[in-house]
Every structure is written in C-alpha cells, then in structure tokens.
C-alpha cells in the first residue's frame, strides 16, 4: 500500500503544495493513506483522508496549515460504482454524522475503489450495485451510538413499553412478520409542542440501535425532491428510523402532499425502514395521511405525570452539581401541567441561578426557576393570600383542599380519585367570588386568566369560538393556569334558550376545551355565578365544573372581621363595630365595603371640628340610611 496520498478526483494539482507534504506527519507509525477525496463533514467542505486505521477530515483551514480534525474510524459501508462515477459512504463517524465521498470522476473512481476495496472487504473490484443515486442533499444518517436511548427519556414508561412491544418485536421477528403478513412500519407521535416528541423519536432509534434520518418542514420547503432524498437516504441506511417532524406543516404544503403519501406507501415495502411522524396538531393532518395504511400506530405524548416529571428532572440534572438535599419529589409535585421542554428549561434556569450563586443546584433554585417560567408576560396574581378572605372556616378549608388538588393532582390519583378540572363558585353578588379565584391562583402559583362573556363574544360568525380556543391556548402555554369565568350564567346559560346559534357554538367550544384539559392537565377552570339554576347542565356534569363551592354571605362574626379590616386605615372615633356587625345582617362583603366608603365620604362632607379628621358613628348612620335608600335592604 502506498503512503502516497491519492487524489482520485483530479485534485493532485491543487494539493501539490507544501501542505500536502504535511499529511504524513499526521499519520501514526504503520498507518497508511488509502484515499483522499473531497467531502463534507457537518456541512463543511474539505478533504477526507481514509487511512488504514481512521478517518481524518481536513478543512480548508488545514490546507493553509491552520486546522484539521480527526475522527475515530467507525465502519465503512458501501461503494457504488457505475462506469466512471463513484458514490460511496466511506465512514460513519462516531459523533458527527455521515461523511461521504461524492462523485469522483474518471480513472480516479477506479483508483479510489481499488484503494478503498480492502477496507470494504471486497475480494474483487467493487460491483456495480445500481446507478449511483443522487447524493441526498443535507440529509445525514445519525449513527445509533450518537443518539439518546430510553434511559435518557424521563417517564413515558407506557410509550416505551408500547414501542418495545411493537417496533422491538418487528425488528427481532421479521420472519414471523412475513408469516403473519404484517407490514407495519409507521408510527405517529402526537402531543403538545414541547412534550418531547422529537426526543422520543431519537431515543426510539437509539434504543433499538437504528440509524436516524431527520426531516422537517424547514429542510424540505416545498421541494418534493428533498422529501424523496430523505426517504432515499433512510432506505439506503436501513435498518433506520426516518423521523418526519412537523408532519402537519408538511401536510399544509400542497406540492408535498401527494409525494409524501406516495413515499409513505413505498416505505412500507422497505424492510427495516421505520417511518416515525410527529405532529402537535393531529386535526391538521388530512385523511390521506392518517387513514389506515399510513401510520399504523399512533402514540400520544401527553403531559408528564409526577413520576415522569421527577424522572425528567433527574435526567436533566444528571451530571450537574446538585444539592444532596434536593427534593425532587417536591419539585415534581409543584410543576403539574408543564411539558418536558418546560421542565428542561427550568433546570437550565436553575443551573444558571446556582452558578451565579456558586452553589449546587438546590430545591430553591428549581422552584424559583419554575416560578419564572413563562417570562414577564405570564399573568400572575402575586401577593393574594387566604388572610385577605373572611369566610366561614368550612368554606375556607374546602377551598384550601381545592388548592391542594390544583397544585398536586397526582396526589388525588394516588387515592384513587380523579382530580377535578374545574369548580363552580356559587354565591350572592358581592361575596368575593372573584377574590377567592385570585387567592386560589396566587396560592396555587398558577397563571390567572379572568374572562367574562363580553371578552369572548363577537357578533362575527365563528369569532367567538376562536376567542374561546385562543383563551385556552394561552392558558395552556402558561400552565399551570386558572381560567376564571366570571358571571358564568352569561356564557354558560342553557343551550337552545338563545335565538343566536353562535351562542350555542361558543358554549360548545368552551365545553370542548374543558374536555380537552381532562387529559391535558395544567389548566383549571373556575367559574362563578349567582344563578346556578341558569347554567347548562353540561357545564356542571362530571369532568367539567364537577365541584360546587358555596360562597355565602358573611355571618355576624364574619361581618365584624370584615368591618375591622375595612376600617383599619380610617380614623374611627367611638364607632361600635360589634353593633354595626349586628345591624348589617344580609350585607355582603361588597355591601360592607360600600358602607365603610360611604361613611368616610359622609365624614368628609360633614367636616370636622376636631383638629384631626374623624369618622363618627353618625357617619355610619348616614351611610346606612343612604345605602338603604338607594336599594332594597339586602335580604
């Protein structure tokens, strides 16, 4: 074997400079140069040098004595030779993907084949396998050793099991597959953005030691040939996973639909080619893509439960300095409704905070990062506590139990109870239902989306349903979240009562969204009304606003506490709050608030002889009389 580098594609002249003479210095004793050709690695053009032991990549920098990279030899695959043209994959590189010899013309091809032949194990000259396929532009086969495996996927145990029972079985028993006439090859992953579809697709390939070709809308554009290239690359590398990302987006591009369907059909006949599609919008896929015979198995990647969240956090924290006291269970319980991507984002943010503090990542860092998720646009209601509410103890403890379920729904499941996805606050006007909702959101550390019928109702056909849809999309994106529907009887009155068909559609959309969150946690719906009798029964049935909490008018003790709180900043003089509480039976919190405000106004109007302003019992009498004059005495 000659130690002289061969430049089979006529580059001898180009490389005749002093740089080429440097090449032998890179070689180990006994290592021989077998081939030197133009090639690409990680999208960079340069020279690939196949030696008897390894592959070197020399980019243009090296040609000027600046730079070279060396990769471990992994394996050689195939050479296709066709009357003067050669197209070969000469090496699969450990971590970087595929490097390939592109078309090498004329005698150079023959020389190259001869030189590469020993590495390929051919006893004779390389055979003509087929006409050389056009090199797939931009699609590389990632070797399985560069991919994650199921061990790198937190949670998703059901999906892993399903994959083992289908793909694992079919890979190990191709003979039986034929016997049973099973030509299954398609798998469709669907789930919310950030739920981990791409990571799972990669891990699927790594787990079963398959190569991986990834193709998505961005790489394809509207060029069907690129789609075809991706399938061809994967087919040539079979057994291999072809991961088709953004399937819904591809399906929206008219020039791609027919070729895609046709390629999916053809793929079924290629043994070892596993097509895995991914989409976050199953509804956007046309019938031609989801009908039987395309993707035979659909796997939904839902939001991770507490066990899965813990596993995801553990995987994301692996290898980072972490506090031994870090309570992953507590953190996992705190982030219900978050996607895998959000959890990873939180771990990154926590690691950054820990780095800034020169400390290991702790529970505090993680909880802080979780609170910061969603950025400044996330609507939160900080600073509202249960102390702000004067409620009967029983009502308060019922609400606090609800808070616990919103914060950690998995806890309810541990007790065999399906956690509620919504609740209805019922009570007379002015009893503080909105305040209760705000306190719940603040205490459960949820984003808060207050909405009334007026916010989402439009006179334009279809607009109201879209508003409801967008509201829930925003809430899901900012999960964990509470959607608070005030005056629910306006939006949720019984269907069929209104002449406006748009009203029924709007409520239907609302019900649909509520059903959606049953399996897609992270959004809790809280509705308030003083007319529960007017609500459509579908709203309050199980799985929707299944729990009703009554927010009653305050009793005398409650009124006393409210008056004390409301008059705290007022300069009272001789006002008997006990007596006032006794005389204000039937007043709501809002009524009491109005009473105190009116009394203060009366004091201002009255003027004061004293040096300091004072609110006197007479001012409250005036306010009481004034209030009773304006409206009928509260019941």
């Amino acid at each position, binding site marked *: 074997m000659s130690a002289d580098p061969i430049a089979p594609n006529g580059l001898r002249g180009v490389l005749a400079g002093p740089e080429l003479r440097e090449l032998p210095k890179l070689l180990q004793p006994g290592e021989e140069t077998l081939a030197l050709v133009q090639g690409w690695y990680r999208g960079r053009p340069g020279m690939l040098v196949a030696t008897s032991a390894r592959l070197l990549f020399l980019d243009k920098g090296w040609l000027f004595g600046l730079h070279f990279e060396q990769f471990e030899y992994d394996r050689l695959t195939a050479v296709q030779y066709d009357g003067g043209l050669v197209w070969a994959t000469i090496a699969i590189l450990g971590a970087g993907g595929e490097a390939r010899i592109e078309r090498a013309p004329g005698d150079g091809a023959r020389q190259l084949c001869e030189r590469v032949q020993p590495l390929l194990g051919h*006893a004779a000259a390389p055979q003509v396998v087929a006409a050389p396929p056009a090199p797939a532009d931009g699609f590389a086969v990632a070797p*399985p*050793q560069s991919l994650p495996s*199921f061990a790198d996927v937190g949670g998703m145990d059901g999906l892993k099991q399903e994959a083992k029972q289908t793909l694992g079985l079919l890979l190990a028993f191709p*003979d039986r597959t034929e016997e049973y006439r099973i030509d299954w090859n398609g798998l469709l992953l669907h789930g919310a953005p950030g739920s981990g579809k791409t990571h799972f697709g990669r891990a699927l390939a790594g*787990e079963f*030691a398959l190569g991986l070709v990834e193709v998505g809308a961005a790489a394809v554009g509207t060029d069907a040939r690129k789609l075809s290239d991706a399938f061809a690359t994967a087919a040539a590398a079979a057994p291999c996973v072809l991961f088709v990302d953004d399937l819904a987006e591809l399906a929206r591009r008219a020039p791609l639909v027919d070729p895609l369907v046709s390629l999916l059909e053809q793929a079924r006949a290629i043994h070892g080619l596993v097509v895995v599609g991914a989409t976050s919008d199953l509804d956007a896929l046309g019938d031609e893509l989801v009908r039987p015979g395309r993707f035979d198995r659909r796997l939904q990647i839902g939001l991770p439960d507490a066990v899965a969240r813990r596993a995801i956090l553990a995987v994301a924290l692996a290898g980072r300095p972490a506090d031994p006291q870090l309570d992953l269970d507590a953190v996992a319980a705190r982030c219900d409704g978050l996607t895998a991507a959000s959890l990873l984002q939180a771990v990154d943010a926590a690691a950054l905070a820990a780095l800034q503090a020169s400390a290991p990542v702790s529970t505090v860092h993680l909880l802080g990062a979780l609170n910061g998720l969603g950025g400044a646009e996330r609507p939160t209601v900080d600073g509202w506590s249960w102390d702000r509410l004067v409620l009967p103890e029983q009502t308060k403890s019922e609400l606090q139990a609800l808070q616990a379920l919103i914060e950690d729904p998995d806890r309810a499941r541990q007790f065999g109870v399906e956690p509620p996805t919504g609740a209805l606050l019922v009570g007379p006007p002015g009893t503080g239902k909105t305040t209760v909702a705000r306190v719940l959101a603040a205490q459960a550390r949820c984003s808060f989306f207050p909405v009334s019928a007026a916010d989402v109702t439009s006179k334009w056909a279809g607009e109201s349903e879209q508003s409801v849809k967008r509201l829930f999309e925003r809430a899901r994106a900012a999960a964990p979240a509470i959607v608070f529907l005030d005056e629910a009887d306006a939006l949720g009155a019984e269907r069929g009562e209104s002449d406006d068909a748009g009203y029924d559609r709007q409520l239907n959309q609302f019900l649909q969204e509520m059903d959606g969150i049953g399996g897609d946690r992270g959004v809790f719906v809280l509705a308030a009304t003083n007319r529960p009798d007017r609500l459509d029964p579908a709203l309050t049935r199980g799985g929707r606003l299944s729990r009703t909490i009554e927010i009653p008018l305050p009793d005398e003790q409650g009124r006393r506490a409210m008056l004390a709180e409301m008059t705290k900043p007022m300069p009272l003089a001789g006002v008997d709050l006990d007596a006032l509480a006794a005389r204000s039976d039937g007043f709501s919190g809002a009524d009491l608030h109005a009473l105190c405000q009116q009394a203060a106004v009366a004091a201002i109007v009255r003027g004061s002889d004293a040096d300091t302003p004072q609110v006197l019992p007479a001012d409250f009498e005036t306010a009481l009389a004034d209030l009773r004059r304006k409206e009928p005495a509260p019941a």
Partner: protein
Amino acid sequence: MSVLLCALTDTDAADVDGWLARAECELAAVAVEPPARVVDTSSAVLLHASFKPGRSVVPASLTLYRDHGRLRVELQGDDVAPLESWLVEALELTRVCAL
C-alpha cells in the same frame, strides 16, 4: 453484504448478558478489530468488529435484541459464507433467515 438473522438458544436468551460476555471473548480471539459495544440499551446491543477471513477485512455489525434473544448479523464483504458459518457455530446460534 450479507445480513442474517439468528436466534440464541433458550438458555442463552434467558441470560443475554452472560451470552454477550462469552460472545465478546470468542470474537476477540479471532477479530482483527476486537468487538466494541457501540450501543448498549435495555432493548438492544450493537457490537462492531472486523475480521479477516481471507485476504480482505470484513467489518461486522451484530445487533442483539435483548428481549427476544435474536441476533442480526451484518457482514460487509463478498464471500463471507465461511465467516458466517463460523459465527453461527462459535456463538451457538440458530439461523432463522437471511434478510
């Protein structure tokens, strides 16, 4: 290139790690490039090795499907039948089919 699907004996299928350790020793004794586990997951193990049964070096990829006790043997080269036979015998495999 030849691709062969083989089955482990029932005993070996019940203890794939034991079989793997044995197989690696057997292969190392004759390989020009000793076997390396390039992938080792809960479902599959991918071994790469190279042999020189004649004049040429033959790269081999062996994929073991752990849960099913089956092995995919991929040999890159012509006239690899003797090597194939040796592998089947040395690793106590049963041929299932050629792929």
